[in-house]
């Protein structure tokens, strides 16, 4: 290769890099535009929010901005969401850890088929089980309650938490298990003594994945809990958005409030969030 062609090769990516960087920068602005709309209009008060001024920042910050109204209306539902999401996330992660360990390390005849049949439950449109689900919850007395919603999220969360833990534990060397078995540890003891201490990163990944999924759910919340006072925040936000008497600065602020917990989680633990995406969508 001549020096001239080497120089060209080095120069071309540089100019290209500036162009690419500029495109990325413009895309970032487009991606952030809805976030700006939410925050800027949420910060306006009832007098200064108007359709004609959607793209303008709030002229002054008054104590009567949309966030005050949104917090007033949505904070009970925010608490409902929290008291539902946390137990559901913890329970489904624990069950997924045990299942994933068993499917990865104690394979038996037909275990892969059972696992695949379980995994199918993650992909089904939940519309196809809603009617019997509601009837069942009514019979066992959990319909319309947050514990009922927790139960639903735990059960339908099992496939995906099992998948992520199974893929994680598959990479743990089997020699570690063998060593525990030499010491006389059984299936459960091995799990508690050997696997659990190794699985903290997997718990973080699954925990974030499930917290986000369950927090963002709409369908189960709206069908299992008809009472507005007990509904999770996503359903309350939708109700707020459809109420004509509510100014849309309150709706925009409400969208920020409803998005805040998962957004904070994402900003603080984005690395694990990405690992969750990769673990939850690409098999093997």
């Amino acid at each position, binding site marked *: 290769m001549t020096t001239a062609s080497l120089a060209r*090769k080095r120069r*071309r990516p540089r100019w290209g890099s500036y162009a*690419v*960087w500029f495109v*990325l920068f413009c895309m*970032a602005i487009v*991606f952030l535009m*809805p976030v700006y*709309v*939410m925050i800027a209009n949420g910060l306006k008060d009832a007098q200064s929010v108007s*359709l004609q001024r*959607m793209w303008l920042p709030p002229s002054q910050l008054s104590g009567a901005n949309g966030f005050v109204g949104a917090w007033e209306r949505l904070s009970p539902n925010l608490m409902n969401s929290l008291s539902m999401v946390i137990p559901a996330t913890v329970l489904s992660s624990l*069950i997924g850890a045990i*299942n994933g360990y*068993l*499917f990865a390390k*104690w394979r038996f005849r037909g275990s*892969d*088929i059972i696992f*695949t*049949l*379980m995994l*199918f439950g993650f*992909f089904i*449109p939940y*519309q*196809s*089980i809603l*009617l*019997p*689900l509601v009837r069942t919850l009514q019979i066992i007395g959990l319909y319309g309650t947050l514990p009922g919603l927790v139960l639903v999220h735990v*059960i*339908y969360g*099992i496939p995906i938490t099992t998948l992520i833990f199974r893929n994680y534990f598959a990479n743990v060397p089997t020699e570690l298990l063998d060593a525990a078995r*030499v010491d*006389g540890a*059984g*299936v*459960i003891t091995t799990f508690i003594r050997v696997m659990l201490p190794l699985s903290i990163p997997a718990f973080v990944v699954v925990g974030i994945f499930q917290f*986000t999924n369950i927090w*963002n759910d*709409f369908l189960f919340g709206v*069908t299992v809990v008809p009472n507005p006072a007990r509904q999770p925040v996503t359903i309350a*936000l*939708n109700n707020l*958005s459809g109420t004509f008497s509510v100014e849309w600065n309150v*709706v*925009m602020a*409400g969208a920020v409030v409803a*998005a805040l917990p*998962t957004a904070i989680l*994402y900003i603080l633990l*984005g690395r694990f*969030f990405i690992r969750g*995406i*990769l673990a939850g*969508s*690409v*098999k*093997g």
Partner: protein
Amino acid sequence: MTTASTDSTPTVRTAPVETQRWRLSETMQTLLLLLPSIVALAVFVYVFISFTFWVSLSNWRTLRVDLSLREPLFATYGELFAMARWQADLRNTFVFTVFFIAFAVTLGLTLAVMLDRHLAGHHIFRNIFLFPYALSFVVTGVVWRWIFNPETGLNLLFDLLGVNYLLAQIGAGPLRPGWITDPTVVAQVNGILAAVLPGAESWQVRWGIPLAMIPVAIAATWQLSGFVMALYLGGMATISDEVREAARIDGASEFQIYHRVIIPMLRPVTISVVVILLHVSLKIFDLVYTMAGVGPGFATDVPAIFVFEQMFKATRYNLGSAAAIIMLVLVALVIVPYLASTLKEES
């Protein structure tokens, strides 16, 4: 438990009888531990689906439960497919799926290729593009509903940026699409379909592209193209630099390296991406429901909204169940081959 150590290496079977006994007992433990999950999912997935299927064949169409089977057996399905609304739903899902997957894969892949160069600040860019994925579809729907409101949002931005001024200068009318409120269906193909498919002339719905569906596909792209990008970036990270270097030495340009080498190597990722997006789009509910609702003339109605309304508002349980079963079949057509191939690959 001392004998258990011998069967950890299955090739060494000194005492076959005992080994088998221990294996069995450990398998029994495994099965017992798995049993609650297996039973729960067997009931909550498979028994429940069977129940819904039964309801779809039944006479249950009021609040009063009636599980007697309808005559003829699939009458409700016939009724469903004859409904103009359901036909519109199938059309909308098809149009949404095509636009959404085309947009999201193109954008996600483009972003991944650009970020793969590790320019200054690429972590920040990546986090910005992926951020919408952390949000609820409800939040996305609520915000984009205002951005695509014809009275404000993008149309106002066109005014502010001078787009409409420029259009007026060249003698064109202002750019003011109705977005999600537009009932227009363009590129209608009813005539062609009627000529090709027997029975198509009886379809009540205008087959074509409902314009109101495109803003919904754009909002969904905003939410999920970062996810596509993340999957592609994950795939690109596994391709070693030597592969690129080899292509570079062979004289390939940066574009050719991606076009000819890297993207073909990422075929498994592309398959995963398309399968996941396809099943998302077949099930799409919250986003459309909060952003556009059923739309003018069912221009943005989708099967998931149809099922929800038939079951929980109109109490037409058999009709809603039939529609739900069709949704399930569509999703299964995509997911079952995918899961089966993964299962085969692993074993």
